[in-house]
């Protein structure tokens, strides 16, 4: 247990070990630790960002779904409205058409009636003439008016 030159040897050995540690051991390991720390921090930040983005996307999706629903209900209500309109329109069309058909039928009937009346008139005239001629013929000359009478008969 004497103080001797060992103390110098120990100082040198210690200094060498410290220098070695300072140069070849500490920096690479520390650098790796720092890098890993940074990596983990980045990873955590990315995860956080991802979660945030997902939240946003969910929100956006909800919004889109909401809008779509609104649009769909709007379309449905428009279609209903349009349907009602079409029904109403076709109802009124049908009414107008019916009236038109009715009117034309009436007109035709009237026309027909008129024509029949006219015909009837002429026939009545003919018949009256025939009747009159028959009455006249018997008194006048049956034989002379046979032809005329035959014609009349055939016409009736």
């Amino acid at each position: 247990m004497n103080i001797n030159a060992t103390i110098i040897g120990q100082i040198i050995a210690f200094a060498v070990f410290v220098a070695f540690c300072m140069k070849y051991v500490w920096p690479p390991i520390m650098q790796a630790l720092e890098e890993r720390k940074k990596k983990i921090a980045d990873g955590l930040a990315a995860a956080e960002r991802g979660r945030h983005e997902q939240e946003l996307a969910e929100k956006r999706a909800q919004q889109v779904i909401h809008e779509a629903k609104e649009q769909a209900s709007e379309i449905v209500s428009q279609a209903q409205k349009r349907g009602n309109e079409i029904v109403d329109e076709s109802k009124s069309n049908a009414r107008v058409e019916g009236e038109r058909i009715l009117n034309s039928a009436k007109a035709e009937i009237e026309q027909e009636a008129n024509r029949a009346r006219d015909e009837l008139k002429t026939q009545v005239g003919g018949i009256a003439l025939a009747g009159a001629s028959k009455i006249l013929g018997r008194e006048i000359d049956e034989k002379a008016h046979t032809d005329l009478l035959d014609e009349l008969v055939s016409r009736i």
Partner: protein
Amino acid sequence: MASEITTSEYIKHHLQNLTFGQKQTEIEPGVWAPTGEWGFAMSPAEAANMGFWSINVDTMLMSILLGALMMWFFRSVAKKVSTGVPTGSQNFAEMIIDFIDDTVRGSFSGGKNKLVAPLALTIFVWVFLMNLMDLIPVDVIPQIVMQSAAAIFGVDPHHVYFKIVPTTDPNATLGMAIFVFMLMLYYSFKIKGTGGFISELTLQPFGKWALPINTVLETVTLLSKPFSLGLRLFGNMYAGEMVFILIATMYGAGLAMGSFAGLLQIGWAIFHILIITLQAFIFMVLTTVYLDMAHQEHH
């Protein structure tokens, strides 16, 4: 323990370093003279008389071996360090380095100093490894060295000394403390400037009218730092080693005492695990704190 040596000789034998220096002979009782040859001291008295220019080979060998082991381990980790998921030895090294880094960050505020953290790592692991040698049963390695020396060189094994715990040699602990002291002085001059450092030593704590008192007080304070640093570690490890040796002396005193000694040794070893770690930690933290003080400017 050989039967022909006494307990006191056994203890003395265990407390003696393997010293290499100028051989001495006892020309008359208490008076030693150099023989002119160089070699290992054959007795504690010869080692003591070798003077300053002798070297404790066991201390040097063990400390350099352990330091190299530590550097080899950390260097091998540093070479293949990955930023991905750490495995095996990298995990272990990172655990230590993280711990050191946290401790240094906690007690050192000197900004970007590239030296303090690696210094703290070296101190903690190296001192821990050197202290750890204390847990090897006291006779194992000395006996191996003694018997092999006797077999190879034909010397009397009783004159071969080997202390395997470098931190029980004050040369090792004071050597480290002196290196720390040199760093303290270097940073004091660098950060505070010569004037700043000198004024810190002379103008506190009582102001400029008590300059001599201040100087004495501050110088003692300054010098006590490395001494307390080195002697604290030495004292703790020396005392622990001494207890192990005392327990070991009981093994020769019959079966009952031997078993009792075995229990004692296990108990003390378990307790000593705490001490060796704590002392390594204290040495590291105090070094960091001293260097932090060297970095702080007083106003």
